[in-house]
């Protein structure tokens, strides 16, 4: 027994030493010093008398869901960077937490602090409609970023990407390419993001409607979850189900990393793919032209920077200088643009 316990204690010592060494090594391994992607901001115009000349001090409150995805992370980064570009903006951010209820709670503390304007990307427009109303009632203009409130009284400005238009743009590109190749009955695959989200349904509807107008249809649709690993699995399923494909639309470039990995792992090359959102990596892949990814349709997080600029103007009671109106408009929907090899270089700075 003593022999046994001596063995044990020696083993423990060895284990302990190894564990300590491994621990020290690992902690050193967490550093991630990539040059951060430059935020997408608009530098203040130097022209005198423009809207960017410092004016009344504006406090902007900001709330967006905790980012677990490149696009959401870029939204927060952009908002912060744009606010920092103005000397007259005081930027207050509250973490919106993991769900709509947590964001509602965070917003009520924000409202109590009485900022001049609130910019928020709601978890869900419908669920946070009441929070928007509450802020507006308290006299704080609300700028809704990307996820629409059903109630027009709940916001001063809504700035959104065009989900339906994204599907339209992707389908238009695919139709044009296939028509040019002379394919009459193409096999088209689709890899959407989380299928229960309204934005995914809108994208898919725009895609299906536009394809239908050209007489095409989606042969198979395998949803992923906006993550690379789920994209890889969904794409593997899609490729297995369709032995021959002509075109694929993948809704999201982040999950597209996994989709491209799956394509490479199966060695399939007979089709071309269109991405979505417009990540930096996707644009670089399109430029390099060595994968099946030939285009991507934008849904740019640069809208967060624009939202901050507009919130500042609202706070200062100014309008957009190129428009005749003296106030900022109530709704802005960004167009979804198609990035191909030809124009990728001019979009690279907008990639996230």
């Amino acid at each position: 027994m003593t022999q046994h316990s001596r063995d044990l204690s020696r083993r423990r010592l060895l284990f302990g030493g190894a564990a300590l060494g491994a621990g020290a090594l690992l902690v050193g391994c967490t550093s991630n010093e990539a040059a951060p992607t430059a935020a997408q901001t608009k530098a203040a115009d130097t022209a005198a008398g423009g809207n960017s000349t410092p004016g009344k001090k504006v406090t902007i409150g900001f709330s967006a869901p905790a980012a677990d995805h490149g696009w959401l992370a870029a939204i927060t980064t952009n908002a912060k960077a744009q606010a920092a570009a103005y000397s007259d903006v005081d930027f207050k951010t509250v973490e919106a937490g993991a769900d709509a209820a947590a964001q509602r709670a965070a917003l009520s503390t924000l409202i109590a602090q009485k900022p001049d304007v609130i910019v928020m990307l709601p978890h869900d427009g419908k669920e946070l409609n009441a929070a928007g109303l509450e802020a507006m009632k308290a006299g704080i203009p609300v700028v809704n970023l990307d996820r629409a409130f059903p109630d027009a009284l709940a916001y001063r400005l809504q700035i959104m990407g065009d989900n339906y238009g994204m599907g339209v743009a992707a389908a238009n590109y695919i139709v044009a390419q296939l028509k040019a190749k002379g394919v009459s009955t193409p096999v088209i695959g689709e890899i959407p993001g989380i299928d229960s989200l309204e934005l995914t349904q809108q994208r898919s509807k725009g895609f299906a409607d536009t394809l239908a107008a050209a007489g095409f249809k989606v042969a198979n649709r395998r949803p992923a979850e906006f993550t690379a690993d789920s994209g890889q699995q969904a794409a593997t399923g899609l490729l297995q189900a369709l032995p021959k494909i002509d075109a694929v639309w993948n809704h999201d470039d982040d999950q597209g990393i996994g989709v491209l990995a799956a394509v490479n792992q199966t060695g399939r090359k007979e089709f071309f793919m269109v991405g979505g959102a417009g990540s930096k990596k996707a644009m670089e892949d399109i430029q390099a032209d060595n994968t099946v990814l030939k285009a991507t349709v934008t849904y740019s997080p640069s809208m967060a920077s624009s939202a901050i600029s507009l919130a500042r103007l609202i706070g200062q009671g100014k309008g957009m200088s190129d428009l005749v109106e003296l106030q900022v408009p109530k709704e802005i929907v960004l167009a979804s643009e198609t990035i191909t090899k030809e124009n990728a270089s001019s979009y690279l700075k907008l990639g996230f």
Partner: protein
Amino acid sequence: MSDSTPTATPDRPEALPPQSSPVDPAVAGAVGKGPAHGSGGTGQLSWWRGDGGEGTRRNLGLIGVLVVLILIGIATRPDLYGDSSWVWNNILTILKLASVVGVVTVGMTFVIIGGGIDLSVGAIVALAGVWCTTLATQSYGAGGMIFTALVVGMCVGLVNGLLVSYGKLVPFIATLAMMVAARGLAAQISGKQTQVSDNAAINGIASTSLLGIPLLVYILAAVVAAGWVLLNRTTFGRRTVAVGGNPEAARLAGINVRRHTVLLYALSGLCCGIAAIMLTAQATSAQAAMANLYELDAIAAAIIGGTLLSGGRGTIVGSLLGVIIFSTITNLFAINGLSTEAQNMVKGGIIVAAVLVQQFQFRSFTQFLGRNRLTTG
């Protein structure tokens, strides 16, 4: 640690302990009636009737389900199944799809047999994946990445185990906390970005094939084989069954229950580390949100495979079959172009049906179930 095969007696070789170990006579008592191992019929003539053959019967049932699923596939897509090279390729695709969850499930099976539950496996996979794809780790090359993933996975599992056994937290709570915390740490390390792996050797794990079979499938096979040997042919495995069946009896029998519990969670964490490398290779990237809900997939697969949620019973082969059934369903729905909503409903139905069938068919276990916390399994 490892004992050789027990000297078999004619009627119940499974319940009999190896003669060489002093703790094992009591282990048999702690295990109670008829622990069913996935040993696939150890030469018993009456495997279809006796208690010892229960695991075999259950696994044959699962294989039956698998055959039915494949027949449905043949009936619905005869065009695809008519092509033999496509069929072979499809089998490999199903196995590749099962490989990551399969490795996680092996660890999960050990934890559940040992009377615990590990809700943090998905989060551990994400943390290990993110940690091994940081730029600093990638600079050490493939070896450094693999080492990091394995050690991170095991350390997190170790913390789980310490919390459960020495901190006396309920496993559900301890691992739930770890699930949240590990994803948080992963998000912190990754800066909420998708980290692309540029290492050709790591990415090659998912695209390399040896003798026509993907490397991922070999890894799954190796982990399953190691798990099977560990559970069925070593004292560690027998102690796991004993601890899960009746921790108090196991403690009185001289098993260090607390240390054993720590080891079980560390084992689960190690499996998650292996899975993290496989998943990172497949996706050529890692992010904090990866391996979403793998804990539920792994638990469901283990339960379908006949692992008792209250511990004390379970088989590795059954768990593997459970994982393969799930990935076959996913494949079936993919090749038919059906929606994932319907797929999830079918998965839920299969989980419930599997547990109902087990309850119905194995009445003799009612007494055994009654002694445990979760009688419904």
